């Protein structure tokens, strides 16, 4: 569907040279929602803008359905752009046009009468659940509503691909969820291939099938969302997962000698993480019953990616030392990662993390 081949973009100015995108190759399949996550300045926007050539790549090729966009004439490029919708963080609606005229903007020169354009706009407004706003001006809309209009406008010419550059970053969490739901719905209903740029982990978790992690202009890790986040290989990916969880708090609690981390002999603080798609089963109660140990949950950070649980649990485990060891072996068998955070089993030894 979309293929990027060795794409690079370097910005040259008098004072500096910025390699915003470095030799990126990426494939996004038909019907996929692909997330590109990275910190601010990682080069995500530049990369996505290279797809519809809002930014001319310094080198490399961009293909859409096998056609090389980077080799097109200006005229061909403009026609192709009509088949690539794009939405932005700041919505970028036309302030002087009413909602339906915003949506009808890209329909111009499509050979439609004014009435046909208005009908099409109405149809699209219904699709984004904003039917009552056709004659309102953008300044009278909330952020979420503006983004819905922008989405409707981006879909006007039945695009094959939708590019979203931080489309929810200016929205509050609740509105973000509703926009993400809408994107998911459009993806399902229209089979719309979607590329989502974000610096927020939960966006990727909520709607993406596959994702790529970007750092310093490069894609450092790429894959199916579940495996990417269950088994992060790169520091930056791990950091994203940490920011989305409260697990990092445990270290400061230990430093502060919080009451819950003052272990009695034989107790350990352990972190369990789901490593692979595993049957969702009641692991905590299962191991405690089966191995006769106590598992006292301190933090739990579980999310559902598709039908598999992602995330983990930090808990104080107490009981017979051998039973605990057996329980841990059992969990490893079930593809649950176990990390010792604090161990008070052997009194002579101090903590190791």
């Amino acid at each position, binding site marked *: 569907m979309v293929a990027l081949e060795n794409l690079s973009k370097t910005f040259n100015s008098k004072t500096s040279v910025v390699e915003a995108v470095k030799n990126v190759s990426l494939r996004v399949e038909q019907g996929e929602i692909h997330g590109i996550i990275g910190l601010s300045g990682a080069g995500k926007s530049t990369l996505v803008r290279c797809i*519809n050539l*809002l930014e001319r790549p310094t080198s490399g090729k961009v293909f859409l359905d096998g056609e090389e966009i980077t080799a097109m004439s*200006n005229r061909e490029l*403009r*026609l*192709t*752009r*009509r088949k*690539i*919708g*794009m939405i*932005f963080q*700041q919505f*970028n*609606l*036309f*302030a*002087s*046009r*009413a909602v339906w005229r915003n949506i009808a*903007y*890209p329909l*111009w020169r499509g050979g439609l009468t004014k009435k046909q354009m208005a009908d099409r706009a109405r149809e699209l407004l219904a699709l984004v659940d904003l039917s009552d706003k056709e004659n309102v*001006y*953008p*300044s009278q809309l909330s952020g979420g509503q503006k983004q819905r209009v*922008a989405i409707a*406008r*981006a879909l006007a*010419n039945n695009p094959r691909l939708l*590019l979203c550059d931080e489309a929810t970053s200016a929205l509050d969490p609740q509105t973000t969820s509703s926009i993400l739901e809408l994107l998911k719905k459009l993806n399902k209903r229209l089979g719309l291939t979607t590329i989502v740029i974000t610096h927020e982990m939960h966006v990727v978790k909520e709607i993406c099938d596959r994702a790529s992690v970007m750092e310093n202009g490069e894609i450092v890790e790429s894959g199916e969302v579940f495996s990417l986040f269950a088994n992060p290989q790169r520091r930056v990916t791990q950091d994203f997962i940490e920011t989305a969880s409260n697990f990092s708090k445990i270290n400061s609690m230990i430093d502060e000698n919080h009451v819950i981390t003052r272990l009695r002999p034989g107790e350990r603080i352990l972190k369990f993480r789901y490593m692979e798609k595993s049957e969702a089963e009641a692991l905590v109660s299962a191991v405690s019953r089966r191995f006769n140990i106590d598992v006292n949950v301190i933090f739990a950070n579980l999310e559902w990616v598709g039908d598999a649980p992602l995330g983990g649990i930090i808990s104080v485990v107490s009981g017979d030392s051998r039973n605990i060891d057996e329980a841990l072996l059992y969990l490893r068998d079930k593809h649950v990662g176990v990390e010792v955070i604090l161990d008070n089993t052997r009194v002579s030894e101090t903590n190791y993390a």
Partner: protein
Amino acid sequence: MPNVMSKPDILWRSMTDTLAMLGWSGSLSFLIGLILGVALIVTKKGGVMENGVLYQTLDKVINFFRSIPFIILLAGLIPLTRIMMGTAIGVRGAVVPLVFGATPFFARQIESALSELDGGVIEAAQSMGSSPLEIILRVYLKECIASIARATSIMTVTLIELTAMAGAVGAGGLGDFAIRYGHQRNQIDVTYVTVIILTLLVSVIQMTGTVIARKNTH
């Protein structure tokens, strides 16, 4: 108002002359200034028809003409006016220097009016496949109607000042009327009436600008 009442025909003639100068030079300055202002915006670095050489040239030429005092333009342009209009006096003779006087100023105002438009909106239009010409017509000019209207009313008011000055060197009109009778023959009521008419004219122009701007702000 004995002096004014004694020459209603001359007053009327002065008024129509002023309006004629204003109409002609205003329309021409509007058109040329608009084209130049748009050209500045689109050829600028990062513009939709980026062209460094053209931008620099326009920029320099506009600055050059802006820096010449109008009274010197009036004199300096006489030969050119003769060639273009066949005369350097009267309404016809005044139009050329008026256009040269107002256009550079208006082009700059259009440039600044259009530069207020958020670049994101231009990008959105590009991402939807709009051509540069389409972006000029359907985005820049459409989205900036309010500030263009404001700039136009300022330009027209400036033109009224300039017409008064042009009047002093043989262009006719209300400025000429006021100087010839009010000033030189000390007919003070002529000056007052002229001032009142010009004030009314300015008010009407400003109001029109404001109304158009308000109607196009959503």
